[in-house]
């Protein structure tokens, strides 16, 4: 090995040595920062889906005697069962596509439900109301801040209460 080669080798060693130090710096705090954000985004993406499943369970049990409604409820279940809960690229892309279908189908379900419930003469229970509740739960109404501490959380709760 020539001296020149040795020197280049040395530069590389110094660089790698520094790289490793830098790499280990804040390793944990960065990971936790990412994890906190992942928890939030995961939560926010799945609230509305859960609501749909819950409402479908109740609708199915109500025996509403509407084959159109039962059929749509079944398609909602089928679509949701396809969704993966990890943050893989394919899952994220798939979720976006399925979400559009789900929302349209669910809107139809709620319109049918409304027609059946009409005799009740009450303010309608629409898909928009369901979505609004989803946004409140997911903190998207007040804009959920990452480092929101408990005192701030309380104020946003009070705001939601006013709704």
């Amino acid at each position: 090995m020539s001296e020149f080669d040795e020197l280049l080798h040395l530069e590389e060693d110094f660089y790698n040595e520094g790289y490793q130090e830098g790499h280990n710096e804040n390793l944990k705090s960065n990971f936790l920062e990412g994890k906190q954000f992942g928890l939030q985004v995961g939560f926010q993406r799945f609230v509305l889906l859960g609501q749909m499943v819950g409402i479908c369970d109740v609708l199915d049990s109500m025996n509403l005697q509407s084959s159109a409604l039962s059929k749509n409820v079944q398609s909602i279940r089928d679509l949701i069962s396809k969704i993966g809960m990890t943050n893989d690229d394919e899952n994220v892309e798939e979720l976006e596509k399925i979400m559009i279908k789900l929302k349209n189908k669910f809107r139809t379900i709620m319109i049918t439900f409304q027609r059946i419930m009409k005799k009740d003469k009450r303010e309608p229970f629409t898909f928009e109301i369901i979505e609004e509740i989803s946004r409140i739960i997911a903190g998207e109404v007040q804009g959920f801040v990452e480092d929101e501490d408990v005192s701030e959380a309380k104020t946003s709760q009070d705001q939601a209460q006013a709704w």
Partner: protein
Amino acid sequence: MSDENDLLDDVWGSDSDVELPHENEVKYSRDLQKLREQHNKRGYLDGIVSSKEANLQQGFNDGFPTGANIGFEVGKIIGILQILNYRYGQENSQLRDDYQESLKVLKIANMLSKQVFDPDFRLPDDGKHPILQKWQAKVDEYCTLYSITRK
């Protein structure tokens, strides 16, 4: 990388010996020390930047499924209470109150709060979310009461 040549010039321009570091016990000449500082610093900065992105992403992917699962379960509870409240709320004041309370208690800020998770954002040892468990039990009671079959 543009200062590479300057650095080499600097080193070659001096009379100092280029010593290779020996394991553990390394004595560097001044020039070599300078060389080390510069390359170490460059590596350090690159290391910080690259690891920040990688670690953030790794953390995000680690937290996402847990958050998704909690959000999904919360959604089910809210969905059931919401439609039951619409259907039976007028005749069942307890249901009405529970639904209103669920809208406050099951909000994201509460569900993902530092009181539930440990400092590393992990759920308690059993992996169960205490608020979720409490409300799942509550919803189970309503499902029994109104003959709701959960699929």
